[in-house]
């Protein structure tokens, strides 16, 4: 009896999590011009409106560019740091780890204010540069956590075998370690991209007037009222953000089997 109760409870929790999201998708296909209930028919007009909305398309381009640059920088910094933390016995390892994870522990608003005021003091005002710096700093800890977890599981003796066969450390890294690490690099990069793409709190503090990312664009559209266009945009984002990680996971698994890990 108890088990059945727990199962019902769990199903209700899942419903709580998914129902609102399902309604967004449902309403985005609504033919009704107010985008609300009752549904009057199925239509793709809101997706067409989205495609023709210059402001939204511009926000999409900004978000993708920002996300890609953030992911590239964070992943490089994160992989290098993880290698040092996992592969070498260094003094003060715990302190360094805590320092590198610190951006997650500081509330985002505080981080946003500190970075804005300090870079402004250095004459770097609200700009794309500030936005990029901010996104890098708070995606970095996530990349490090993901890459570190993976790196621990790569056996050291594979690398040592390469070294003993005469490969230089650099050759060993590119021929052995990096291919084995690829799934983690991909996962870390994807994680960084998704977090950057989704960020709003920091972005609102850092973005210069005139530049909108997808979340800030949605935020400013919400000021008026919820329009069916926002639901359509939501559906697109849901498909992208759920689809991308799933594709990423599939690719990562393929890479992993190919490299024999």
């Amino acid at each position, binding site marked *: 009896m*108890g088990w059945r109760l*727990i*199962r019902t*409870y*769990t199903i209700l*929790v*899942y419903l*709580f*999590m*998914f*129902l*609102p*999201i399902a*309604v967004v998708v449902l309403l985005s296909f609504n033919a009704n011009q*107010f985008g*609300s*209930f*009752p549904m009057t028919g199925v239509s793709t007009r809101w997706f067409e409106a989205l495609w023709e909305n210059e402001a939204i398309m511009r926000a999409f381009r900004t978000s993708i560019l920002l996300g890609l640059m953030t992911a590239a920088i964070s992943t490089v*910094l*994160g992989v*290098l*740091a993880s290698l*040092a933390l996992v592969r070498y016995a*260094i003094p003060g390892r715990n302190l360094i780890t805590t*320092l*590198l*994870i*610190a*951006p*997650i*522990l*500081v*509330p985002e*608003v*505080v981080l946003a*204010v*500190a970075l*804005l*005021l*300090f870079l402004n*003091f250095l004459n770097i005002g609200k700009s794309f540069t500030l936005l990029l710096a*901010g996104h890098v*700093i708070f995606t970095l800890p996530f990349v*490090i*956590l*993901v890459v*570190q977890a993976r790196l621990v599981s790569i056996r050291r003796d594979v690398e040592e075998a390469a070294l003993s066969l005469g490969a230089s450390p650099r050759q060993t890294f590119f021929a052995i370690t990096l291919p084995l690490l690829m799934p983690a690099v991909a996962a870390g990069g994807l994680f960084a991209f*998704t977090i950057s*793409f989704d960020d*709003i*709190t920091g972005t*609102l503090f850092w973005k210069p007037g005139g530049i909108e990312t997808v*979340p800030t664009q*949605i*935020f400013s559209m*919400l000021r008026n009222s*919820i329009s069916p266009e926002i639901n359509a945009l*939501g559906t697109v*984002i*849901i498909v992208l953000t759920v689809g991308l990680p799933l594709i990423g996971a599939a690719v990562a698994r393929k890479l992993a089997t190919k490299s024999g890990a």
Partner: protein
Amino acid sequence: MSIEQREARQPWILLTPALTAVTLLLIVPLMFIVVYSFWLKSAAGADTPGFFLDNWQEALTDSFYRDILLNTLKIAAITTLACALLGYPAAYFISRSKGNKLILLVLLMLPFWISYIIRTMSWINILGVSGALNSAMIWLGIINEPIQMLYNQTTVILGLVHFLLPFMVLNIFVSLDGIDTNLEDAASSLGATRWQGFLQVTLPLSLPGLAAGGLLCFVLAAGTYITPVILGGPRDAMFANLVYEAIIRQLDWPLGSALSLLLLIVLGVLVLIYNRYLGMAQLAKGLG
């Protein structure tokens, strides 16, 4: 340079870019706003450097700020409690179900990937005047006129729970999954009922996960800026909203610095207490 020396320098070369980034983009900026919080805002032009206690006095004694800080902590506490009550049974079910554990877990983590702002605004579709719930109740004849269910403290908490629940479930799951199920069997073979076994064996062993999830939920909820703006009314501002107001709208950067530091200190004390008793390792487990 000898090979040993080069070997010893290697990790620091690898760490330099990341450490430089964290130092320049987080540590130094934090120290900078500590200094800035003692400056004075000037009516025009640059703020006046110096050592003035005005901002801190305002942040600490003005009842407006104090009330909103207390209200923020209250909202965070209720959110955390609700996440624990909703999340524990779900995490228990996932960890003890046979077979499709991973799928259940991934499914619950999916919303975590879906845009925060989309998930927050999705509640307008449900609870709004022309939302699903009102439409359903009118259609069923329960009410004649739509009722306004949005824009109050309850909807803010609802939005926060919806946002933070996956964090809680994941942390509890990690803890529960590490418990040897033989322990429960041992308890029952010694005469304990399933419920007793759970209360005296499983629950205490899963407390670290519950605490880690609770800390994450509390800290993230207390620092929220967006949810009260979208789902709250004019009187439901949380502390982060005050910070935004001071920094972006009033351009009072010294006061804004003091307010953000106040939030950092309050939440930092909590993290330190947690770290003192439970350590950071559990938190890293849930995130990794």
